[in-house]
């Protein structure tokens, strides 16, 4: 058994502990440790995904206790993919944060950043339902810290709302888990999958309740309408760099919904049957529209980015809600794309916000420093967010469209209409920000060039171009991943569930 599986949790924890213990005042040291840790995480994630691609799911028995009695980590293609995505994004965003001096704005940025990574990776890797809750809390409380980084009136007030709403979600999570344990007497996800197959009819109603409550928890994380209200305020008021990292946080909701919808409550399970699909599809379509309309109706640039994030979650969940291998593979591709695209849009918007008096789109302000490059980056980020060619978004969109051949009219019209609305909104915003500025022939504002910040954004764009060019092999890999999700036997066997002698 490879001990590397625990590394994505243990390494950031160690880094964070060091950052808290020594040289708290030395920014250079903090940056070095944080970068080193994140880089190491990326390397480990790459190793893990290679391992996962080679063999089937691998299980790590924490405390050396047999499943289902102890807690297990499970490394399969899906968890490895999500960890790698997290690590790569985290590295780029960290470079931006340092390049734009965001980490100077408050205390303990790097320590909390490392804890954040630990929480996210832990959530992706765990094979235990209650442990998933614990790591949700770790990543949430870390996200509160990052979201409030730098303080300020609106940020504190928005932060309060963000925390309060998520605490409702956490409480709901506990209600669901308690119900599940009370009925099945177990918390290990593989064990749940096995036991639910032979669930007595008398318990069906309770399990259905637990299943849907869990789904709603994930829907809160994934910002599905009508549980998305926390997102615009939180993301718009969070530091831009943090919002960029949060691009992966919403995906955790998508991941969890996919994991439980294929492993614990698969479409074949008679107790829940098509419950997840029936709830997710309408919600996802509405989310898509709400997000797109929000992009067109947003008053400020950060809110525009926030609504683009909501729309992207709509697309992701449209893909997931089909619960077919093809659609899941498409959704996974779109998850990767929209994480990068969302982060890019938030970073570009942050670059603009740093060069503008304020974020209102309808205000005519003097041209921004480095405006030309910035305009180009905004254009590309907008194209990516709207899912237009030539970047990966268009391919992801084609994949989802063609995966939804049945119910084509409904799904296609929603997706294409939403794309159109987003396009109009982004075009308006872009011409307001970068063209209208030239009406008044005012001199451009001056601002330090921040080369590393720009490098980070360009890297994200490069990654999107990369996954577009390599779409063939990537989708082939994802197809295998998706197929694996719909045949959980290997996942379950890997847990070597302990049988009473």
């Amino acid at each position, binding site marked *: 058994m490879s001990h590397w599986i625990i590394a994505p949790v243990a390494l950031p924890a160690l880094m964070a502990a060091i950052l*808290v213990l020594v040289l708290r005042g030395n920014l250079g040291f903090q940056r070095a440790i944080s970068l080193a840790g994140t880089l190491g995480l990326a390397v480990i994630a790459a190793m893990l995904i290679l391992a996962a691609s080679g063999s089937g799911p691998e299980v790590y028995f924490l405390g050396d206790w047999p499943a289902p009695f102890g807690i297990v980590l499970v490394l399969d293609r899906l968890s490895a993919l999500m960890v790698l995505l997290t690590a790569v994004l985290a590295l780029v965003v960290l470079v931006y944060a340092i390049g734009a001096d965001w980490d100077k704005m408050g205390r303990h940025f790097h320590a909390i950043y490392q804890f954040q990574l630990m929480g996210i990776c832990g959530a992706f890797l765990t094979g235990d339902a209650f442990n998933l809750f614990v790591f949700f809390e770790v990543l949430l409380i870390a996200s509160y810290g990052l979201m409030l980084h730098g303080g300020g009136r609106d940020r504190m007030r928005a932060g309060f709302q963000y925390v309060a709403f998520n605490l409702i979600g956490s409480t709901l999570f506990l209600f669901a888990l308690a119900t599940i344990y009370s009925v099945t007497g*177990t918390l290990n996800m593989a064990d749940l999958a096995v036991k639910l197959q032979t669930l007595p009819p008398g318990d069906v109603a309770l399990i259905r309740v637990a299943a849907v409550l869990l789904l709603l928890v994930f829907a809160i994380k994934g910002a599905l309408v009508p549980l998305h209200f926390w997102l615009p305020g939180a993301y718009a008021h969070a530091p831009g760099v943090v919002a960029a990292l949060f691009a992966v946080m919403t995906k955790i909701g998508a991941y969890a919904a996919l994991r439980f919808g294929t492993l614990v409550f698969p479409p074949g399970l008679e107790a829940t049957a098509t419950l997840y699909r029936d709830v997710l599809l309408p919600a996802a379509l509405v989310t898509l529209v709400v997000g797109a309309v929000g992009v067109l109706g947003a008053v400020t640039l950060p809110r525009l980015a926030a609504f683009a994030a909501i729309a992207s979650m709509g697309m992701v969940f449209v893909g997931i809600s089909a619960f077919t291998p093809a659609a899941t593979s498409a959704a996974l591709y779109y998850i990767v794309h929209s994480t990068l695209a969302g982060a890019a849009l938030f970073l570009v918007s942050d670059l603009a916000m740093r060069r503008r008096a304020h974020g209102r789109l309808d205000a005519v302000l003097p041209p921004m420093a480095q405006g030309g490059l910035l305009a180009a980056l905004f254009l590309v980020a907008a194209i990516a967010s709207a899912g237009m060619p030539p970047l990966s978004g268009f391919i992801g969109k084609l994949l989802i469209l063609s995966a939804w051949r049945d119910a084509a009219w409904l799904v296609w019209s929603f997706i294409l209409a939403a794309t159109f609305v987003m396009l109009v909104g982004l075009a308006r915003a872009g011409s307001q920000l970068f063209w209208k500025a030239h009406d008044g022939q005012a001199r451009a504002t001056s601002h330090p060039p921040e080369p590393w910040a720009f490098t980070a954004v360009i890297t994200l764009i490069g990654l999107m171009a990369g996954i577009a060019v390599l779409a063939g092999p990537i989708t082939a890999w994802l197809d295998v991943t998706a197929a694996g999700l719909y045949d959980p036997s290997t996942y379950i066997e890997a847990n070597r569930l302990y049988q009473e002698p």
Partner: protein
Amino acid sequence: MTLALIAAVPFLGAVLASLAIRFGRGASAMAAGFATALALGLVVWQAPVVLQGQMVVTPIDWMPALGLNANFMLDGLGLLFAGLILGIGLLIVLYAHFYLAAEYPAGQFFTYLMLFQGAMLGIVLSDNILLLLIFWELTSLSSFLLIGFWKHLPEGRQGARMALAVTSGGGLAMIAGMLILGQIAGSYDLSVILTQKEAIQASDWYLPALILILLGAFTKSAQFPFHFWLPHAMAAPTPVSAYLHSATMVKAGLFVIARLWPVLAGTPEWFWIVATTGMVTMVMAAKIALFKDDLKALLAFSTVSHLGLITMLLGFGTKAAATVAVFHIINHATFKAALFLLAGIIDHAAHTRDLRRLGGLRTLMPITFAITTLASLSMAGIPPLNGFLSKEMMLEEAAQAVWLTPWAMGLLATLGALFSVAYSFRFLAHGFLGPVRHDYPHTPHDPSVGLWFAPGLLAGLVVAIGLFPMLTASWLVNAAASAVTGTPVQKTIHLWHGLEAPALWMSLAAVGAGLALLGLYPRLRAIWDAAPRPEAKTIFDAAIGGLARVARGVTGWLHDGALTRAAAIATLTILAAGTATFVTGTHLAGTRTMLPVEAVAAIPWAVLMLAAFATILMHRNRLVALILTGIVGLILSAGFAYLSAPDLAITQLAVEVVTVLLMLIALNFLPKETPVESTSWRRLRDLGIAGLAGAGATALAFALMTREAAFDPISAFHLAQSKPGAGGTNAVNTIIVDFRGYDTFGEIIVLGIAALIIFALTEAILRSPTALAALARGRRRDVAGDRHPMMLAVATRFLLPLALMAGIYLYLRGHNLPGGGFVAGLVVAIALLMQYIASGFAWSQARQRVDHHTVIGAGVLVAWAAGVGALVFGLPFLTSGYDYVSLWPLETFELTTASIFDLGVFLCVLGAVMLSLASLSRLARAGGEPVNPTAFDIDPSRAEGGR
């Protein structure tokens, strides 16, 4: 590979052009020109093969699974368009170099231009319709950039946005259409699709696919009713208008119609939709063009009209008509591009494009006049120019087409031709003929050869094709027509069709009537100006503006930042989902025998219920509410003890104490009262929601408590293994630190993070002047009677060591009896808290030896080490071992590695609680609480007579 290379070259050109910016405008033009020429050369090199009727293909697998492949092909049609794109492109680059004023960033311009060129070339070379879609949307985006090139012009920005909205909107429809088409044909490769005519036309999805694809094509090619964007795109620099909006991009729609002609054409639906749209567009646009004064606007509508003409021909669905369409594509490209460039020259020379301000340029600009004459006569369809040839053939086809009646189509076609004669002559007459004027904004003169070379060359082609069609054009026309129709075409083109040909009389009528119309122009113009017309732009702007306003309104209303409403919605959603799923599943009531209700339990329960009710009623008095909350917490702790959960009882108790203390300190700064804000209706609503939620929770809890688990709980294993496996008799504790130690690891990290956040937030608050001011004000409000009562101070001094002992004891025994690192940490923290309360934050902090950060960090590190330690022995993270140790005066106990982990927990909890309080204390001092010199003191404010 060649074709892929051809498609790639312009994009490389774009990169080159952008890199060349630093070397001046010339360099960028050179780069663009070089790339275009190179691509053209490669195309010409491929031409002979294609002209022999073969097809050049370059298949590259991209996403075989999806059917999206980078397959390129070059056939007659592709050759024709590639030739147009690159040939005219070359002329445009040359012209633009001389045309663009120095103050505009030429490098940027050529970069965009080459981006467009690459996208356009990609469309015509694609053998895969999904690939085609990608290039299709790319042309929309690049034309957006080119139209908006003059950032300072509002018309430019609006025109760009309008073009993008219309064309990419159509593009989205086309995506759906192409996907359907591909699914019917079983492949997205054109070479396959083109063989599937029967299957496609037989499918129920034929009509939807047709309509969706045509939506894309019509929007792109500015067909009625989507024509309105094109005139507004004229805000672009003239080279762009000539290139994108007359010669190439607007023909992309025609290209797709032609490309799919073999499989889509030939049905009644096709004839009615395509031919009618084309015909209406042709006539309507030609009429409007007659009344436009802006040269570019006139040409724009003329372009729309000619695009309509070609669409109509393709719509007829006959081989002959398709051949004419192809021929006219060539002719129109030549004379119309020339005319646009000439309009640009006139604009440059006279600083106006308004026909009402021009006239008499004949003598001032002889060269320009000569070229214009040829081009505009060709546009009018005057022999022996190429426009005449294709117009004749068009009329011929129209005369044969049966639309409603045998003659209607011919008549309308003649009408279109008539108008085009009229506006062509108007362009010439009102621009160049007539007396020389003295009020030009700028005295015009012929431009340098650099500017007139391009239109001159095109005019040369106009003549050459007109005179020697067979030599110059027919081979290309035949090749392209063969590709369009899918069958070999050998069309011979004559200047003279004989007297019996209806076309001759139709065009004679058109010319005559057209000239007559021009004679009557002033009167017609008066009528036209008087007549009310729907202005497409205002309608479009109203539509988009309305959409945006609605979007803003809806978004603002939905996301008004009200947490209370969001929480209410969430609660109701959860309730609805839970209820719905419950009633749709089967449920058997529980059979478990319930516990008897004992008085010892019933009385505290009653108190708890009362306290909760009281909280609802009296929550506005915050102190009372806090106390009531504390009471509830204490009763819960007692309840846990009663229901055999001593660990829970202790923990709940300790946490309750600390929480209440925290909130008490916080309440120092916050208002003491919650004002009455919500209406009684609102309160009622909230009570309703709350009641439902409570009912739901009750029902679920009751259902669960009264049922047995469907399977044996895994905790049986924990009980069995607690002693032998984990070396502890307290199963709860062994679960916490061993079986599920990983949960605890996450849990203490949550605490650690919480403390860090509180510290960071405090720093942020202390940096904010507004907050500091508020703090200072806050402290004035209420002054406690005796801040640090002496008795309490003495007591705490005395208690501290005991508390510390108790903490250590709890920690050590935790593994076997209720207790453990967490509670121990809290107890010690509370002991220290007492010092704070008794003697003030500052006094205690002055005596604090270790920094709280260090304690937290150490705690996490110890727990981490306890986990990683196992790896040394090749065991998984957090695997524990144990041994028995006896340490006087305590009884013998096992020392487990789990207890090292528990030590980490202890430190983390202690550090976290202390850091949080220290942070709050800093706020208090910032608020002006005096620092005690000694541990004991009396309230100084009292000494000053108690304000």
